[in-house]
């Protein structure tokens, strides 16, 4: 036990001292796909066989379909997604000017659905919401992640970083213990990734379906035997902002394929 405590202290001592120093320097950043087998990487890169593309196609249909009481489609306001949505996923989560809240891409789409189209609120992880998020995120594929942590986003960034370093659950582990200190090593039969959000929404073999980054974060909470936060929890958004900043510069891969 003493050895373990000493190890933990040593791990914590390696955390960056400077305020905004990245835990993994830019030259050492590696996308989650670098920790997959060759077959899964090939599946992700194959435009046709990537199962996430089923959702992207559905999202493209939804984009053009009139919805809600306003009988208005996404395209009526935003036009061609290839132009209007390019780079959008690379900037989120972002502070919403009107409400001052930190919104991820799904929140943004839910807000549009409810406020501007007068449609029913899409459920978290519903096919409709995932399809639209995947379609919009697809328009940023290959663009480097570059979220803003300035101004009103700053407190969210700080909160996200604090949660990332906070020991939680019966395992008493923080995100940093796996994804900064031990990436590249194995946990059971799995290779630990650096924990970057670039592939999400991603098709996970474990889920047999497409899922959001939020679902993936909840899976990690469950993994360390911590109480899972509900979908839409502000703590998730803070953490998503920190993760996006931490992965800054890596290209968006959505829809990715993961184990």
């Amino acid at each position: 036990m003493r050895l373990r405590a000493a190890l933990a202290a040593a791990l914590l001592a390696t955390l960056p001292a400077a305020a905004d120093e990245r835990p993994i320097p830019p030259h050492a950043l590696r996308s989650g796909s670098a920790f997959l087998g060759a077959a899964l990487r090939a599946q992700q890169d194959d435009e046709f066989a990537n199962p996430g593309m089923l959702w992207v196609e559905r999202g493209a249909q939804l984009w053009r379909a009139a919805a809600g009481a306003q009988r208005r489609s996404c395209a009526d306001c935003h036009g061609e997604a290839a132009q209007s949505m390019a780079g959008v996923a690379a900037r989120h989560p972002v502070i919403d000017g009107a409400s001052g809240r930190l919104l991820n891409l799904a929140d943004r789409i839910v807000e549009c659905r409810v406020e501007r189209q007068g449609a029913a609120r899409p459920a978290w992880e519903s096919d409709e919401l995932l399809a639209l998020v995947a379609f919009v995120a697809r328009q940023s594929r290959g663009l480097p992640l570059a979220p803003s942590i300035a101004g009103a986003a700053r407190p969210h960034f700080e909160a996200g970083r604090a949660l990332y370093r906070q020991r939680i659950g019966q395992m008493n582990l923080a995100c940093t213990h796996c994804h900064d200190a031990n990436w590249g090593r194995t946990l059971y039969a799995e290779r630990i990734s650096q924990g970057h959000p670039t592939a999400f929404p991603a098709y996970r073999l474990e889920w047999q379906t497409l899922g959001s980054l939020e679902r993936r974060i909840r899976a990690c909470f469950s993994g360390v035997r911590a109480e899972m936060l509900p979908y839409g929890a502000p703590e998730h958004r803070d953490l998503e902002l920190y993760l996006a900043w931490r992965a800054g510069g890596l290209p968006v891969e959505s829809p990715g394929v993961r184990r």
Partner: protein
Amino acid sequence: MAARIQVPAEARRGEVIEIRLLVRHPMETGYRVNERGQTIARNAIRTLTCTYNGVEVFRAELSPGIAANPYLQFTTVAESSGTLEFVWVDDAGERAVERAAIRVVE
């Protein structure tokens, strides 16, 4: 049910063409339970066939051991212009039909 189908739009007569198919389907095994502890009924695609101008060129018998959203790839010989018809039936009795056109040149 929906699917992505990839068939070359044009091929030479006698050419071996590759056909790819990604079917959107949950392939429920019948062994999973929902949040209330009730068994989710098995629902997997059982048969999938491809006919080329009415002649069967490919048939697959799938089982619940196959992952969700199954991906299939096979080849056939381009003989004449026409339609490839894909039909699959699942445990729930739902029958899906998708078509793709092909043009064969000399």
